[in-house]
């Protein structure tokens, strides 16, 4: 039976392949209707791992273009993500920002998969990613594709609440030099330099460096509570296209950060690493990709990368190296059938030592996965179904299957209605399985400990911690009106089960012999463990909307809003048992934004953004209103000056709380920046 079944699948492969010759590439959009930016390339890969127009994707997708980034004047990735609907961004301190989509906003973005040029920056050792180490310069970004909702069928475990794919510019687009210098109030500064050149007729290369100093956020009295951070990153990208069918990309980055972390002992009593500490992080990555195009509709991609990070903080060392190899094949066996499939293998080696103790301290683990997705054009130009599944084998929980079914109806007058049902999982990280660490100690008769004995609090993982599961139901509507206005609406419900929950165990009293080995055994201390377990599930439903329109030829208004109604166990927001632990984070119930871009003349443009964010879950931070203004003047062909005011509406505000670490709440202040960009 087995050989026969294999024989059949080989036959199907044969049948599919033979038809490739018969299917001609068809693309009906006259290219002259596209803008220059689109001609240079505006295609979305996040949903389907193949070129696709965002308006025809059966998923909640937003693309932030290089021009959007320039207009908004943002220089950090988290700020850039604020330009898309449904993304929650909250500054925790001077260098860490919490980012999520559709809820659970905390320091490590644990339910979000973020990729830079196809390199996943989600760290499988610590349940999320370190935003302070994401230093991709905005000047190099070609576009950011954001998918709200699960992308697990394509991208695998941890693409639960969303996928963010940051795509940097082709080296052909970064020739000659660019320098950018920024100075601001509050001691923030940034210097960026880039130079690129052609490699004959078939390739191009660029190298860049960026240095960034960010100030600490203020405490509630308005004074900085530590020194903020200094970071630099340098890197390169080389694109070679030796034949019309082959393109090869080689790119890499190296970075170093120095920052300060402050622990607020008034929150937790005596702690091993109290006070302000000088901490460091560093990292490098190297990625190679080869794409062979048989035709526009038929490509094979092979990609491999290595990614290393090393962090020293809280007197702990966190050292992770990831090796990843990926094969992706896209083809069209029939005119109305489009297939993408791929294989991926990943190896992680890590070492976690110091105050944060993992058992074992060193660990090496593997992932293996395969996915396939077929898109069937059931009615030409009208109705498409997308069916896909990813099967992923990981060292922690074994085999996980993540299927999705999507459908889109393309209406005659530029509208589209789509719906999707998909399943995603978040696999356990080392943290949830292996942490076993003393995190704080409370002295007797203090605010948190009314007993006569000192209490030691341990954070303990569970060896049987299992996946968090999620099933998402989504429906969306898009319409582009005659006058160019574009409306995008999405409603969703995401049902979670077995969410990470901290549980307090029974305290254990330690006995000792304070009067020597012959004296009586007396209680000397109490050990209290906070254990990470799979707890209850819950659901989040919500609506996301965006509307872009042009009241005048040179004036664009963009309105964004999202509303969220969570029905989650309260223990996932914050644990009363352990004040230290907030593993699920906190999200606002609604956000709204109005952004205006006005081209006052060819050389002067003005952008302003008003943004409102509601109170966070659990009252962790108050509602706030934000006003950002940017004025830019193209002085000459080569020189652009911009003046940027951030957070102008309020003197200061807290956007969220630290979470995980008992750091004091950071307040975001008004900032004014002056930036000069020079081409050379």
């Amino acid at each position, binding site marked *: 039976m087995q050989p026969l079944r*294999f024989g059949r*699948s*080989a036959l*199907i*492969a*044969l049948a*599919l*392949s*033979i038809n*490739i*010759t018969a299917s*001609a*590439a068809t693309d009906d959009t*006259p*290219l*002259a209707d596209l*803008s*220059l*930016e689109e*001609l*240079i390339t505006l295609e979305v890969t996040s949903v389907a791992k193949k070129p696709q127009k965002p308006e025809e994707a059966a998923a909640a997708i937003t693309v932030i273009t290089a021009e959007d980034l*320039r207009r908004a004047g943002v220089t950090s990735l988290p700020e850039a993500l604020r330009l898309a609907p449904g993304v929650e961004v909250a500054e925790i301190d001077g260098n860490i920002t919490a980012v999520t989509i559709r809820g659970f906003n905390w320091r490590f973005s644990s339910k979000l998969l973020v990729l830079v040029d196809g390199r996943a920056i989600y760290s499988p050792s610590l349940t999320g990613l370190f935003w302070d180490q994401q230093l991709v310069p905005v000047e190099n970004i070609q576009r950011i594709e954001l998918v709200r909702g699960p992308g697990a069928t394509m991208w695998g475990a941890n693409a639960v609440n969303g996928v963010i794919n940051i795509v940097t510019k*082709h080296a*052909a*687009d970064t*020739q*000659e030099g660019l320098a950018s210098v920024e100075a601001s109030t509050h001691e923030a500064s940034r210097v960026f330099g880039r130079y690129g050149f*052609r490699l004959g*007729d*078939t*390739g*191009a290369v660029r190298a860049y460096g960026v240095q960034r100093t960010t100030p600490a956020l203020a405490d509630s009295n308005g004074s900085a509570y530590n020194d903020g951070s200094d970071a630099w990153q340098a890197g390169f990208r080389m*694109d*070679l*296209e*030796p034949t*019309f*069918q082959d*393109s090869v990309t080689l790119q890499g980055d190296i970075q170093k950060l120095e920052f300060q972390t402050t622990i607020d002992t008034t929150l937790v009593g005596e702690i091993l690493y109290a006070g302000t500490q000088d901490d460091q992080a560093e990292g490098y990555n190297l990625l190679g990709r080869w794409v062979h*195009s*048989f*035709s*526009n509709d*038929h490509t*094979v991609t092979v990609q491999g990368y290595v990614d290393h990070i090393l962090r020293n903080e809280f007197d702990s060392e966190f050292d992770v190296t990831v090796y990843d190899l990926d*094969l992706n*094949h896209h*083809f069209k066996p029939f005119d109305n059938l489009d297939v993408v*499939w791929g*294989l991926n293998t990943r190896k992680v080696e890590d070492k976690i030592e110091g105050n944060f103790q993992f058992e074992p301290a060193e660990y090496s683990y593997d992932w*293996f996965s*395969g996915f396939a997705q077929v898109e069937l054009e059931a009615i030409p130009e009208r109705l498409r179904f997308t069916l896909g599944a990813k*099967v992923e*084998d990981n060292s922690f929980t074994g*085999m996980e299957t993540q299927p999705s079914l999507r459908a889109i109806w393309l209406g005659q007058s530029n509208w589209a209605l789509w719906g999707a049902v998909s399943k995603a999982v978040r696999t356990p990280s080392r943290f949830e399985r292996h942490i076993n660490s003393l995190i704080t100690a409370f002295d007797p008769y203090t605010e948190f400990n009314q007993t006569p004995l000192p209490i030691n609090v341990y954070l303990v993982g569970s060896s049987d911690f299992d996946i968090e599961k999620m099933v998402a139901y989504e429906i969306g509507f898009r319409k582009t009106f005659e006058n160019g206005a574009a409306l995008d609406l999405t409603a969703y419900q995401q049902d979670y089960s077995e969410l990470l929950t901290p549980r307090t165990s029974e305290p254990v009293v330690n006995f000792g012999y304070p009067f020597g080995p012959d004296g009586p055994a007396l209680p000397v201390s109490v050990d209290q463990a906070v254990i990470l377990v799979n707890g209850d599930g819950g659901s989040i439903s919500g609506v996301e909307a965006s509307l872009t329109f042009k009241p005048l030829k040179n004036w664009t208004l963009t309105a964004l809003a999202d509303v969220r109604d969570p029905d989650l166990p309260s223990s996932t927001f914050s644990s009363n048992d352990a004040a230290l632990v907030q593993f699920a984070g906190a999200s606002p119930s609604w956000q709204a934004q109005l952004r205006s871009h006005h081209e006052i003349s*060819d*050389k002067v443009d003005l952008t302003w953004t008003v943004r409102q964010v509601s109170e966070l879950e659990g009252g962790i931070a108050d509602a706030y209103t934000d006003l950002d203004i940017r004025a830019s003047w193209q002085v000459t*062909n*080569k020189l652009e000056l911009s003046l940027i005011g951030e957070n102008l509406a309020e003197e200061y505000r807290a956007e969220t709380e630290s979470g995980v670490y008992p750091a004091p709440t950071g307040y975001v202040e008004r900032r004014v920046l002056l930036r000069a960009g020079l*081409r050379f």
Partner: protein
Amino acid sequence: MSLLSLALRFALAGIAAISLAFTAHAQSADDRDNQIRAAMVFNFVRYAEWHTLKPTNSLVLCVSEDARILDELRALSNREVNGKTLTVHLLSGVSEEDCHLAYLSETHALDEKAFSLFQRGVLTISSVPDFTSHGMIELVTIGRQTRFSINNSIANEAGVSFSSRLLRLAVTVR
């Protein structure tokens, strides 16, 4: 079924598909490339202004007879751009002073034709390497990518100005 055997089947089926697919004919690379070039030329019209030519209701694109993208450019005829109608003519078929922009093949890009067009304030475009040493816009091919370079000082001298947006997108600006 064990994971290994599942993976093996998966991989083998895939390799079979890929290797068979190698027999497929590649789509003509040049067709798409030429269409992109023509679409770029059309976009330049959107972002250019002519200060020395007298205002008319139409814009005339003049093309060298032997230009490789002649057919693609001809297909742009009668398209509306900035409230004017674009018409496409052969360079040999019209008087130079009727042209607003010219797409030059190697035959014209390198000789005095380019210079005389420049003198008349015509926006000159070509794919000939190093065209921006004396012309205004050069379509640049780097591997599979089509981009453009601009010589803004020559354009300004001839009375043609480009919007900041166009200049920002150019891979090089002189």
